[in-house]
């Protein structure tokens, strides 16, 4: 039986203006690194870029690596359709991110940080550089050796994948690497590297300032803390909202829908499309045993009302993937083309409706065999749209 006892709860940590970051930084740099890792681990913070890897564990693994040079990278290659929260953080509270990077550097043993900023956000550079300068100056004053550089991307969605990001920073095509080895031992320039999403870093500020418990007390089991949601599409109030994790999609739609919400795309083009009939059963959070299905998300929530054609939506996503695939691995490069041109062929009537089943099988193969998360996750939106709105796909 399905019951949702959870209500939509707003939180206000990320964008809260904190004037005392210097004091917090001082305090953190005086604590033993193991204690900081434990603090993070007990907060159960998971990566807010979408993949949801436990942040404390990431820092721990990298801290344990014997390499003498290490790097901290803030992933600001925010390219997932429907996501725009990281820009807002870097605009409004950049010092939280910088501070978190410095603490991470202290924990893992690195004195060099980078912000990989997508080229589309180039206009942020002058202001951000000013903040970085002030920040570095302060670090120098308190004798903490840590510098931060901005590395600008140039229009490639795949560079948000961490190993593609390294390749890009090394002056190459942003093609994801084979894993293992993992970034915690072989990252940028082959050195141990922590890559954290902008929002993840901003949350660590909250945890370091207020303690793990404060964070842990938000949200639900397996999905602790709050999260920024980028809300767009058919909604009367598009924008960025900080909400506790664990809400049901129904609660979300009640708050943000326009009264006629047909489906919500959770997690961007690489996420899932949830139809109206499943709003109740869907929980927004990480893998866990809550009622119904729970969906991890980078925070992209796109609402579609009944005036929208799901065929057009899928067509748009698939064009995106077809173009933004790095192209190196077969299942992703050719798979995306087959899916995109395949649904067009079905829509035109050139292929029978059953061809959709062949394409669904293909997405399974892509999920099983693609080299990186991009190719693996195309299946998510494809299958959730085709399975739920099959009639819209057919001529």
């Amino acid at each position: 039986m399905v019951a949702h006892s959870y209500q939509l709860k707003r939180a206000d940590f990320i964008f809260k203006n904190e004037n005392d970051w210097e004091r917090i930084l001082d305090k953190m740099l005086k604590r033993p690194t193991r204690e900081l890792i434990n603090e993070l681990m007990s907060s159960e913070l998971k990566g807010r870029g979408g993949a949801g890897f436990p942040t404390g564990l990431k820092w721990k693994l990298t801290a344990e690596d014997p390499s003498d040079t290490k790097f901290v990278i803030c992933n600001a290659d925010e390219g997932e359709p429907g996501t725009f929260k990281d820009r807002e953080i870097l605009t409004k509270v950049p010092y939280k991110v910088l501070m978190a990077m410095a603490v991470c550097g202290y924990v893992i043993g690195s004195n060099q940080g980078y912000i990989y900023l997508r080229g589309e956000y180039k206009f942020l550079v002058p202001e951000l550089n000013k903040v970085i300068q002030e920040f570095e100056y302060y670090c120098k004053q308190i004798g903490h050796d840590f510098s931060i550089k901005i590395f600008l991307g140039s229009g490639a969605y795949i560079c948000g994948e961490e190993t593609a990001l390294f390749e890009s920073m090394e002056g190459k095509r942003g093609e994801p690497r084979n894993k293992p080895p993992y970034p915690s031992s072989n990252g940028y320039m082959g050195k141990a590297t922590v890559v954290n999403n902008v929002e993840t870093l901003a949350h660590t500020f909250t945890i370091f300032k207020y303690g793990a418990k404060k964070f842990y007390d938000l949200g639900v089991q397996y999905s602790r803390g709050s999260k920024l949601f980028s809300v767009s599409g058919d909604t009367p109030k598009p924008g960025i909202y900080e909400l506790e994790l664990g809400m049901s999609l129904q609660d979300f739609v009640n708050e943000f829908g326009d009264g006629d919400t047909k489906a919500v795309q959770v997690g961007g083009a690489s996420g899932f499309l949830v139809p109206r009939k499943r709003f109740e059963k869907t929980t927004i959070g990480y893998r866990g045993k809550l009622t119904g299905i729970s969906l991890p998300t980078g925070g992209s929530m796109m609402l579609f009302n009944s005036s929208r054609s799901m065929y057009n939506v899928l067509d748009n996503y698939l064009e995106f993937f077809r173009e933004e695939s790095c192209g190196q691995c077969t299942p992703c490069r050719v798979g995306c083309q087959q899916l995109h041109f395949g649904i067009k062929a079905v829509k035109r009537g050139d292929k029978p409706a059953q061809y959709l089943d062949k394409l669904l099988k293909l997405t399974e193969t892509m999920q099983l065999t693609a080299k990186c998360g991009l190719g693996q996750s195309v299946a998510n939106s494809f299958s959730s749209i085709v399975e739920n709105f099959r009639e819209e796909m057919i001529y």
Partner: protein
Amino acid sequence: MNPVQDLIKNLADEHGRSRANLLPILQGVVEQEKYLSELSMIEIARELNLSAADVYGTATFYSFLEHKKMGTYLIRVCKTITCAMKGKNQILFAIEDMLKIGLGETTSDGKFSLLQTNCLGWCHKAPAMLINDEVYTDLTPESVREILTEYLKK
């Protein structure tokens, strides 16, 4: 020395000459020249001791590193889902109509080029576009005409 060679030499001096400096140098040239010509890429390859093909392969991976001649003002209209839903095509038509160019084309005076691009990250203020590095959001055919009128005066 030709001015592009000068520019590239200065960029290499500023950023360094290792492979890891390739992207900032390519970006520096695009910022000045609006695109990467054959000559630019050959020169960059020479400065960084890379093969010209390597530079070409890397540059063509990135959508913002144009290698065809572009106008002074490069317009990139976002075509991803939310912008598409909120009337991206109408914005394109307004621009095409006003500048008398199609997608991928440059005005005869070399002032404007028109391209589409993938998600710009302004979905809550769709439709959106970039003119060079400047963002314009919540576009309507009217607002886009006003914006372009300002650019035409420049």
